[in-house]
């Protein structure tokens, strides 16, 4: 099991504190029978855990000899997403393609995504183009066969 760095403790603590504080403020105005549960979660669970994590992070930064800033976190771990340039490019491509579904339509945006991922992974262009065509055809047939009305965008 990888051990988080003190900075990860601080970041997680700050995130929890912000989430807990936001939840508390929003649910303050709710009736007690309807808002009691999310209020209790925010004020008595999430926010205090945030404070404890912040405290732990500060303590580790102050007392641990050499805060482990890179060792464990950078160790290869196939179970976690690694933020490499390739991953960031894929995240950007997937996000853009997803938001383009409503505008360009499902088939076109997933086809474009396949084209872009082919480029990101430096696959031969003709292989990528064949894959894009095959994927589009399979998806089109799938949607027709099961009568799924995915957003059609430009194809409408």
């Amino acid at each position, binding site marked *: 099991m990888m051990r988080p760095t003190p900075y990860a403790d601080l970041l997680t603590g700050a995130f929890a504190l912000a989430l807990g504080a936001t939840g508390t403020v929003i649910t303050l105005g709710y009736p007690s029978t309807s808002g009691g*549960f999310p209020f209790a979660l925010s004020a008595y669970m*999430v926010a205090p855990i945030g404070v404890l994590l912040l405290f*732990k992070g500060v303590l580790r930064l102050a007392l*641990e000899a050499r805060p482990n800033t890179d060792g464990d976190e950078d160790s290869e771990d*196939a179970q976690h997403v690694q933020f490499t340039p390739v991953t960031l490019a*894929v*995240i950007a491509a997937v996000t853009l393609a*997803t938001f383009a579904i409503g505008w360009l339509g499902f088939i076109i945006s*997933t086809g474009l995504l396949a084209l872009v991922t082919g480029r990101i992974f430096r696959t031969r262009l003709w292989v990528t183009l064949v894959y894009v065509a095959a994927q589009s055809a399979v998806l089109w047939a799938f949607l027709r066969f099961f009568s799924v009305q995915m*957003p059609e965008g430009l194809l409408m």
Partner: protein
Amino acid sequence: MYTGIGDALLILLSPMNLSWIALGTLLGLIAGTLPGVSGVSMMALLLPFTFGMEPETSVLMLIGIYAASTYSSSTGGILYNIPGGAAGVPTTMEGYKLSMKGRTGEVLSTDIYASFIGSTIGFVCAVVLTPLFITFATLFGTAERGLFALLALALVGTGALSRADPLRGLLAVGIGLLVGTVGMQPNTGFVRFVEGYPQLWDGFHLVWIIVGLYAIPQIFRLATLEKYFHAVREMDLHYGFGEEFRRFLSLFRRNRGMIIRTGLIGSIVGALPGLGTVASSWLGYQEAYRSSKAKEEFGNGSIEAVAGAETANNAAVPNTIVPLLSLGIPGSAASALILGAFLLAGVQPGPQMMAVNPEKVWTILLGLFFTGVFFVIFGLPFHRVAIYVTKVKPAFLIPAIVAFSAIGTFLATGFEEGIYITLGIGLVAVLLERMYLPVANVLLGAILGPTIEKELLLAYQIGGVGRFMQPGAASLVLIIAAILLWGLYKNLLPSLVEIWSPKSSQRVS
């Protein structure tokens, strides 16, 4: 208690249901073998497509994936030192070293036969435990139902019985519970957090949460996995099935006591919420070490360790479903997904299901046994195909998963914005993972949150605080408090003591 078994066998033996189990088993083998692709991710991806299926059919496919991916989570570990899931880590530690010594065929065979023995022991235990749990559950009222769900979350969150970080575990549970409060309050109908968005008044749809938490991060994980695939592409996985089977029989004769004990340990641990297959495989490993006459082999490649860990984690699989079938409360991410399949089909698992549709409960339990048979049949030839599985390029896998996640999400609600919300949940899940927060806890919190809130509020409205002072409810309250204190004492205190220790102070000075 055992009525409906005959009907269940008839349902199960229909060619259609057998085909779905077989398909689920194959998909589970692929998911477990591909590095970083977990069975739960595969289940999440396929869950939306089960909409409209008979509940037992969809659940049979999902448990096929779950059981086969648990078995094959160690295949990737044995072949290229990357387990397909956390349950495969103990086997990876020993199996990869044996594989490097040229004993790949022996390890893969031991893995599969020990897994089958484990799943059979687990199945027998599940058949015994389920009616007992159901009898226990019929004594529950609203307060006890809510508190038992809370108990499951306390076990999962604090890591009281494992070694998880309790602060992060509880924080993840808290985030999940908050997600579960979005939309209408179940008792009063008051809309929370999303007053201006009528499409969200029913809260986040289960499919958005499941696909977002499991399938979307999988897409981004694949981006960096190509390097792990190279190692296995050149391997020769041809070995004699008969010879390896005889070798396993000899191992079994020498260690049958240990193998049966690890099966029983796995079964019992599997039935406890929050522990499941991961804790079982480590306990199986420990039991194999304890009873071994060749302790020096542990850490350098021990076939006994592989047998112990695999028997235990596969014995746990059927029993992780027991709390779900008997109480309606999932104790792991995989059983939460199976609950999702039931809910999508309009069926609420729990004690009533055994009373009204006992054949559904038995179909699922017997289906788990059949899955064990299927993964032995498919698993041996699959080892040779595993090399081809790793030849699939992430460049093509990623757009395909995106496309099917989008279709699945859209199918569940017919709501275009659902696709964007799912992506948003997925991106948040990636960040949560980077903060070392277990997303399984978020999922369990989101699923159990509405039940906890509804049942506890109802119990309070009916009987006030006094309702929680009744023996059953009061016992559960005390157990929850004890688990919280034990989890914090066992896991949080040592880490704080470590920070304060003189050794670390000396290093500072």
